[in-house]
């Protein structure tokens, strides 16, 4: 118990957990780069990974000395690349959004679909499709992102408002309000689908199950900006999120402006998930699973959990999208079907292991 003993216990440079976390993040980044290159090559027209790299390098103006067929480059640059970039952006955003909501609600079972963000955004986006862009179709991708963001924000604010008692947000009420909001969003979606004509119906069904197929350069740029802003707003909240693990009152005693943190986090999550949902539909479970696996690997510090969840979320979406594209080729499965088929069993396992941890 002397000071000398104490000095031995903590040296960040030699802290095995911090070294392990850095290794994990580096490993994930490498795995993600490799997965993205393989994903770019996979599909109806196979392109070898090395060739993918060559095409990318040449597109950046670096001459690799090989001849690239124009149709190959075109397929890669104008079809697959925007799709993979959207997968990366959506995955990272869902991972960070999930980790943020779990931190905010101090509950490892929280997820963007839980507080109505994704469903509210879906209602907004579906309404946009059914009503033909409210006569604002000229706004293109920005319009649908805005509508989805507003839908997500309305749903989440409604949930937060109901859960707010005496100036503080009660988590149990919030989870129940989220369920009610999900039901309400479901009813609205059902009504909109009822209104839709056959043509809209086809794109709606596919969209509701989730798909990255709609990615083009003109749609992913506005969506990526919105998702980037969302992640940039959430990243500085890592330490406040850590403090929130102690409880809201305790975080306040540590100097965290709790209500402000909540407002920023919920707004940022609505923006990011709204933008993602607008383009891809509802993709479930990634926001739940990614932070959970990351915490199992390297602990709960959000300076690790946020970047880790971003990388793993992106890896999961890229992987799921590649599966969706190749499993039943030349047809394509909706990605939401893949993530839910893999995520739901994980969720069951999570619930069971939590149950046994409580004894």
């Amino acid at each position: 118990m002397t000071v000398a003993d104490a000095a031995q216990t903590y040296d960040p440079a030699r802290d095995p957990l911090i070294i392990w976390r850095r290794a994990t993040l580096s490993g994930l980044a490498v795995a993600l780069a490799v997965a993205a290159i393989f994903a770019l090559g996979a599909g109806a027209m196979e392109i070898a990974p090395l060739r993918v790299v060559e095409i990318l390098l040449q597109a950046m103006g670096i001459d690799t000395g090989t001849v690239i067929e124009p149709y190959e480059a075109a397929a890669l640059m104008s079809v697959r690349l925007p799709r993979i970039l959207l997968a990366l952006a959506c995955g990272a955003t869902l991972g960070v959004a999930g980790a943020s909501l779990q931190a905010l609600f101090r509950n490892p079972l929280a997820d963007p679909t839980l507080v109505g963000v994704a469903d509210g955004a879906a209602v907004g986006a579906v309404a946009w499709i059914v009503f033909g862009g409210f006569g604002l179709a000229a706004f293109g991708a920005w319009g649908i992102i805005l509508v989805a963001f507003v839908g997500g924000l309305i749903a989440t604010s409604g949930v937060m408002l109901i859960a707010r008692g005496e100036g503080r947000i009660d988590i149990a009420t919030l989870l129940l309000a989220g369920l009610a909001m999900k039901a309400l969003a479901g009813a609205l979606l059902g009504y909109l689908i009822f209104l839709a004509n056959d043509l809209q119906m086809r794109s709606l069904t596919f969209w509701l199950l989730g798909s990255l197929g709609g990615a083009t350069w003109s749609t992913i740029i506005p969506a990526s900006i919105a998702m980037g802003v969302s992640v940039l707003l959430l990243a500085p909240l890592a330490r406040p999120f850590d403090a929130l693990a102690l409880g809201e009152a305790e975080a306040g005693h540590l100097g965290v402006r709790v209500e402000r943190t909540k407002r920023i986090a919920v707004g940022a999550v609505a923006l990011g998930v709204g933008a993602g949902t607008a383009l891809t539909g509802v993709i479930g479970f990634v926001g739940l699973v990614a932070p959970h696996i990351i915490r199992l690997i390297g602990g709960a510090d959000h300076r690790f959990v946020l970047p880790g969840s971003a990388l793993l979320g992106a890896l999961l979406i890229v992987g799921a999208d590649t599966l969706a594209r190749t499993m039943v080729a030349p047809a394509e499965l909706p990605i939401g079907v893949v993530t839910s088929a893999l995520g739901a069993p994980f969720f069951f396992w999570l619930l069971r292991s939590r149950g046994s941890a409580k004894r």
Partner: protein
Amino acid sequence: MTLAGKNLTVKAGGRAILDDVSLELAAGELTVIVGPNGAGKSTLLRALSGEAKLAAGIVSLNGRKLNDWNMDAQALQRAVLPQSPTLAFPFRVCDVVELGRYPHRGLATPQEHRAAVDGAMAAADVTHLALRDCRTLSGGERHRVHFARALAQVWTPLADGSTRHLLLDEPTSSLDLSHQGMVLARARTFAKEAGAVLAILHDLNLAAAFADRIIVMHKARIAAEGKPADVLTVDLLQKVWGVEAKVIAGEPLTIVVKHTDVSRERTNHLRAAE
């Protein structure tokens, strides 16, 4: 100048659970609040920390109204140890203690942070647990970790030298005998060196041994306050707790409560009646 509350009233369900209570912590002193369950001890502490919504009254911290300080400035001047600390995610002990340094971010060097964390862990006797997952510890060990976190928060003197405060809600309730004394001795040392400490205790012998001043809460008000020997009398114990006790003068004061098992008495009566 320290932490002070004037005419504090807190209401819950239309009833005053803290009724017009005023007190000022004395610099250099460990002030102990005692009292029966539901007497308003925790409510008083929560009122002083700004956590409880006041129906009336003013809390001031180092000469300024509590709300005139921003959250960070408050956190630099006062740490709070809750009655039952919780942790939602698997953090290590050293990481939990490090959270106490949150209000100091940008104000201290990494070496200063580490010195505070190491010192606080040693003071709370949790150094040997530093790399353990906090959620795998026993209740008492966990409580000491959070005590270390509170210590780390107010470990270093402030730039303007103003008083630092520790508010401890039942810091010893889940600790073993030796650690009870250790934590209170540490709290008292902190008061002597750096500021003022307010602790809620149930064990009157611990209170008598470590308190510079005792405040007895009863029915949402202060029933008595002063030096342990002046306050803890046979009459007061009878009036506030309804117990029959013997108070043995000395240093420290010793209180022996005569516990009677009512159920056994009743059986004896029945036997006698037969």
